[in-house]
């Protein structure tokens, strides 16, 4: 692109671009303030809190000290040493639930989406019915499943067994997995359905003409085209599953090694007034979830900014902030988009 054409305009535009950049800052400031208050400050507070221990008991007066002692990284080291077995059990449970439930939910969810996508009578009703489990609050569904997995509950009645679900190890884990899959497979189903609906029918028709069978069409057309939506759904579910707290807490109960997750450790520590170690656990969980999300988006090349598939390029176009401003000189549509490209390339040079 020749810069000559734009030379007479340079001053005006750089002034405009400064104004534009100011406006951009102005527009995102509320977001930054909110993010700072609700995320960044608490995270740093947690970080700071995690360096302090539990106030000691004064043997003379019998009162708890006013000051929390600074213990440095002791909270972290004790997680991996003294409390190690409990932490690793919780980490293992967290990972197990995260992986198993999400895999099952994805398979079921895609199946649900394919069913819902079929043109059939009462489709609206089926969709609404599938959505019901997702609409029930987790705490409520945990109580419902608690009744089902009671000694005298429906599960044992159907199986004709007398399984003690809550006090077993594998049975308690299984109960959690079943309840979680029941609740959240519809979520993946719905997001996948949204992805399915943007795939044009012509693609399938063409494939049919080329002689692709149903499985080929599913693996070569449906899956790749629905992937962006599916990846987002799976990522959200996985993040949720790794933070799982209320389902095992209510369905099986607190401090049960069989289903204890890292979130439950955080709650347990905080409820026993050990905020330092609770903060340490919380940050470890934060880090774990963060690393997971990062790795996941890298591996799947998830484009979280857009849900619809984009062809080629890779570089996203930026919409200039000035499009929101009344322009002094109304430009033709074509010219505006030209300007946009020129500005973008100019900024990327500087």
């Amino acid at each position, binding site marked *: 692109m020749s810069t000559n054409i734009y030379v007479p305009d340079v001053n005006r535009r750089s002034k405009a671009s400064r104004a534009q950049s100011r406006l951009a800052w102005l527009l995102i400031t509320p977001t930054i303030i909110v993010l700072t208050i609700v995320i960044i*400050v608490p995270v740093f507070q947690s970080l700071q809190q995690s360096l302090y221990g539990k106030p000691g008991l004064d043997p003379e007066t019998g009162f708890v000290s006013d000051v929390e002692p600074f213990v440095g990284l002791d909270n972290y080291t004790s997680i991996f040493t003294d409390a190690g077995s409990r932490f690793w059990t919780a980490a293992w449970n967290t990972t197990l639930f995260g992986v198993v439930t999400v895999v099952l939910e994805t398979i079921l969810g895609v199946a649900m989406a394919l069913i819902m996508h079929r043109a059939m009578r009462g489709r609206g009703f089926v969709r609404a019915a599938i959505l019901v489990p997702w609409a029930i609050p987790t705490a409520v569904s945990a109580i419902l499943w608690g009744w089902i997995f009671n000694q005298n509950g429906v599960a044992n009645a159907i199986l004709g067994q007398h399984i003690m679900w809550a006090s077993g190890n594998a049975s308690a884990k299984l109960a959690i997995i079943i309840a979680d899959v029941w609740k959240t497979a519809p979520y993946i189903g719905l997001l996948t359905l949204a992805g399915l609906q943007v795939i044009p029918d012509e693609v399938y028709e063409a494939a049919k003409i080329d002689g692709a069978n149903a499985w080929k069409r599913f693996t070569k057309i449906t899956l790749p085209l629905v992937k962006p939506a599916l990846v987002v759904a799976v990522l959200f579910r996985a993040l949720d599953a790794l933070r799982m707290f209320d389902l095992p807490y209510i369905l099986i109960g607190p*401090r049960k090694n069989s289903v204890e997750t890292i979130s439950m450790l955080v709650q347990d520590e905080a409820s026993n007034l050990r905020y330092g170690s609770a903060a340490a656990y919380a940050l470890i969980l934060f880090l774990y979830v963060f690393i997971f999300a990062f790795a996941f988006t890298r591996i799947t090349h998830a484009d979280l900014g857009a849900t619809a598939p984009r062809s080629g390029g890779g570089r996203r176009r930026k919409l200039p902030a000035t499009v929101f401003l009344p322009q002094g000189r109304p430009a033709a549509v074509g010219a505006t988009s030209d300007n946009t490209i020129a500005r973008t390339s100019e900024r990327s040079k500087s």
Partner: protein
Amino acid sequence: MSSNLPRRRFIQGSAVIAALSAAAACSRGDSNNPGGGASAVSTADFTGTGPITWVQGKDNSDGKVQERIDQWNELYPDEKVTLIELSSEADQQRQSLINNAQTQSDAYDVISIDNVWVAEFAANQWVVPLPADELKNDDIIESVWETGLYRDVLYGMPFATDSSIMFYRKDFLQEAGVEVPTTWDEVKSAIDAVRALPGHENIGGFGGQFAKYEGLTCCASEFINTAGGSFYDDEGNVTINSPEAIAGLQILIDGFKDGYIPAESLEWKEEDGRNAFEAGNLLFYRQWPYQYANNLAALGEEKFGVAALPTIDGKAFVPTLGGHNCGISTYSKNKATALKFVQWWTSQESEQYALETQTLAPILGSLYEDSEMLEKFPYLPTLRESLDSAQGRPKAVAYGDVTAAIQDALYPAVQQQATAEEAISNLETSLKALA
């Protein structure tokens, strides 16, 4: 996100949002330092009169608590009391009370605290020491009074107590022609006798609350205490690893192994076992007295009875003491009114009202002998007997950790996954680590 954050930080964080001043939160200048510091012990001054709040768990008695408070409000219109009901779950009640104390809020004045929380609330100075001489009288049952003490100072005035008793199926025992057992061996042979009857082959024997929660701590420590074991001595040293404690736990383990205690009760909380008892699937049930009214409604007088828990190897059963105490929040503005209310709330009249309307066990001995009460509540002498021999749970500041350690160590044992020796020695290790 918020669920991942330690709560107090979160509380402060929310305050920050409200105030929009991030700087305030960063200053670590201990805002959670209770005003008076150590000096608050001796000089809790009860000044300030005016409206106050009474904070307790959910009232399940159909508004009877409010009715009683209305009576106070008529007597003292200038010092009105407002009832604040918290969750029905003990854990959540404690969380709310602690949140309130840590934010130094004056929203709660007189609070109902479970007697195992007294030490924690006192040590953190969330409640003020109470004038024992103004509240004590000879009618208060001694073991109940002691639940309110921390380091010999009264912090929680008992207003309702609780102790375990044995419910039994009168109809089944009569069918088998067996007397009400008074010893553990008689309990076992009664179970055998009933199981010999047609239709009762699979009846559960002696049930209790053995799920892994506070109930396990209560039920299992009864066996240990009965055998002569103890968790701590008077100086607070860990004394759990004794032959007596191991023997007591062994009796419990054997009860499960030999099928006298039903394996189902490993998942039972209070209500699960009550359902089994009322459905005729359980012969004996160790429970709190509140079950009496439910049984009366479900079974009728003819089908069930109440007795003291059995002696084991010639030793009298030592029940675990439950119950709730009144504490006065450190941050209460109207402490004079609060104290006056505590006195009124634990008076003879109030205790009788609570017994009659909510079947709360009174703290006053005379009510257990009152002929009118005896007619309405024939289990009172049994309960009184239980109360007199009952023992409180360990008075630990970090009681949450202590009871968790007890549950962690003893649950595998009752599940037959650890021996009594192993469980007790693990428990000793974890209790010592807490000290």
